[in-house]
């Protein structure tokens, strides 16, 4: 069995606003094994990006982590001092962000920005760090890195900047790379190139990747395991095949149906999920999907437990109650139920 890298337990994050607390993440538990690539899928407001920031302890006021704990390599990171966190950030856990155009300091050369990170975490000399930066840029597919390193961010296209960001994130050989919508701001042909990079990372056993996206296509192409989030909670988690071929949760099913089928003729009617996502200032009690779910029943007003569907496959829905045990029961019996 592979090594457990990161475990999140009952993570909760709220944003304090004038109108009350926006409960962006409401009890999220999952784990990441070394070297695997996990997709977190969800729509805007699902809490996927906030979860990522919480893992890195980057939630800033008015946001606040109000509960839960994070374990990294068996060490509990909850309540760690900011100084210790800085050693972890960029070194053991690195992050790539959505918008490559605003991710880099516009008045500093690419080389300076890269070597700053490399030198801080790896203590290399200036020359060695520059050398390393050039190597990394070449690795992520930037031509003529020796020349490019002396240029400013505005001289790079969006796709090239995202490559630079990925190179920077990889510069300290992190054990976990969190990519928050890394291709959303890019054109589709550029996106494909960046996804190639992630596919290559997938085969790298030293670096695990959390890929946060709203695009089911991206998940299907790159990830081995998928976590589906909605309304600040995990709705379903499964190996990528199960999510696309044996989805259990009505939300996952709805999401898959609302995109046009591949190869399906034009004008085949889409099946949308009616209604709008819940207001997280005042979320409905029970299942967050209750307002839009075609199977909603009385029982859904009570939050269901996670049901164990199969190996690595769990679903937060009462529909699974009849045929499946809860994750907690399975765990009590000592079987591996993940988390």
């Amino acid at each position, binding site marked *: 069995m592979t090594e457990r890298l990161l475990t999140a337990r009952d993570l909760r994050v709220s944003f304090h606003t004038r109108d009350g607390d926006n409960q962006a993440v409401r009890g999220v538990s999952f784990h990441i094994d070394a070297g695997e690539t996990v997709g977190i899928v969800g729509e805007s407001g699902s809490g996927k990006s906030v979860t990522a920031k919480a893992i890195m302890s980057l939630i800033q006021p008015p946001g606040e982590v109000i509960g839960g704990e994070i374990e990294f390599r068996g060490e509990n990171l909850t309540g760690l001092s900011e100084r210790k966190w*800085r050693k*972890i950030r960029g*070194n053991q856990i*690195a992050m790539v962000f959505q918008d490559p155009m605003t991710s880099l300091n*516009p008045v500093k050369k690419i080389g300076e920005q890269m070597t700053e990170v490399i030198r*801080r975490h790896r203590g290399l000399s200036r020359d060695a760090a520059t050398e390393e930066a050039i190597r990394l840029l070449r690795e992520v597919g930037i031509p003529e890195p020796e020349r490019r390193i002396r240029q*400013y961010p505005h001289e790079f296209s969006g796709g090239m900047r995202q490559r630079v960001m990925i190179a920077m994130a990889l510069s300290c050989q992190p054990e976990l790379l969190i990519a928050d919508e890394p291709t959303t701001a890019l054109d589709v042909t550029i996106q494909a190139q960046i996804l190639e990079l992630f596919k290559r990372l997938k085969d790298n056993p030293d670096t695990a990747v959390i890929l946060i996206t709203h695009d089911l296509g991206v998940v299907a192409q790159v990830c081995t395991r998928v976590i589906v989030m909605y309304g600040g909670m995990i709705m379903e988690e499964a190996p990528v095949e199960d999510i696309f071929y044996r989805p259990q949760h009505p939300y996952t099913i709805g999401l898959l149906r609302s995109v046009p089928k591949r190869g399906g003729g034009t004008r085949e009617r889409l099946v949308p999920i009616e209604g709008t996502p819940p207001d997280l200032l005042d979320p409905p009690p029970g299942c967050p999907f209750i307002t839009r779910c075609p199977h909603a029943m009385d029982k859904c007003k009570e939050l269901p437990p996670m049901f164990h569907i199969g190996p690595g496959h769990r679903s937060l829905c009462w529909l699974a109650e009849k045929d499946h045990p809860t994750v907690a029961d399975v765990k009590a019996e000592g079987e591996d139920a993940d988390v």
Partner: protein
Amino acid sequence: MRQLIVRRLLQAIPMLFVVSVVCFGMIKLAPGDPVLSFVTPNMHAEDIERIRHNLGLDQPAYVQYLLWLKECLSGNLGYSLVNHQPVLDQIVDRLPATVGLMGISIALAVLLAIPLGMIAGANRNRWIDKLINLIAYIGISVPLFWLAILFIYLFAIKLHWLPSMGMRTIGKESALDVVKHGILPCAVLTIGFLASYVRYIRSGTIGQFKEEYVQIQYAFGSKKSTVLFRHVMKHVLLPIITLLGMSMGDLVTGALVTETVFSWPGIGSLGMTAVRGMDYPVIMGITLFSAVLLILGNLAADILYGVADPRIKSGEVSS
């Protein structure tokens, strides 16, 4: 980059032209006939006409303007109506006192404002920020002439530490004496500039901390101080170039009120005296002088900014 410089230079020319027209127009529109200042009681009407002709005042307005402009360009800004001295000489005479006072005040203000503004901005809404911000608020709201009076009362009248008037004690010729005279006016002016610079730098720092690249620095394990000095500082310091360019005009006339209160023999008090004595050529000379300085200051700031910001240098962003 070269194109930017040339374009800015060419834009400055019509500005200078318009400013000169405005100055000339004001002399023309000023009540009172300039010839009268040359008139003595025993002159005949034809004498007066001759003076008028000699001064070119019987020519059409545009010819008069061109003549005036020609004179201006050759360094002749006319003569004072009061003491008949060349205006330019008077300005040049007073220039060191004003430039010295303003230059030191602005320099002090910038040097103090950079750390204060950045500390406040980086610690937004903490007590240190609130304190600095409140003081800056008071600084921009306090009438400087009142502050000057308070300082005179406190440091000159009550405590007898410092002189309250002028630039030199009569009979003394030491540099220390000038410095002592300069402390109070300099303090007043520094407070005035400092307050607005601090606010400027503070809001610039706050703005940069909201930028995504700064947030991302934390994700790469940067300390806040590293972010502040390695990344934010350059962004915050760049706009100061513009700010300084805009203060070039102030360099000459900004100290008008302060100089008057402290009887500092600079261009401000020269202007004040000129206004009191309706001495139009002097007023216009100073106006023109300070407008030209301001335009050139802005020009220099634009060019410097262009050199300092890589995005403008390559023509990526137009300023």
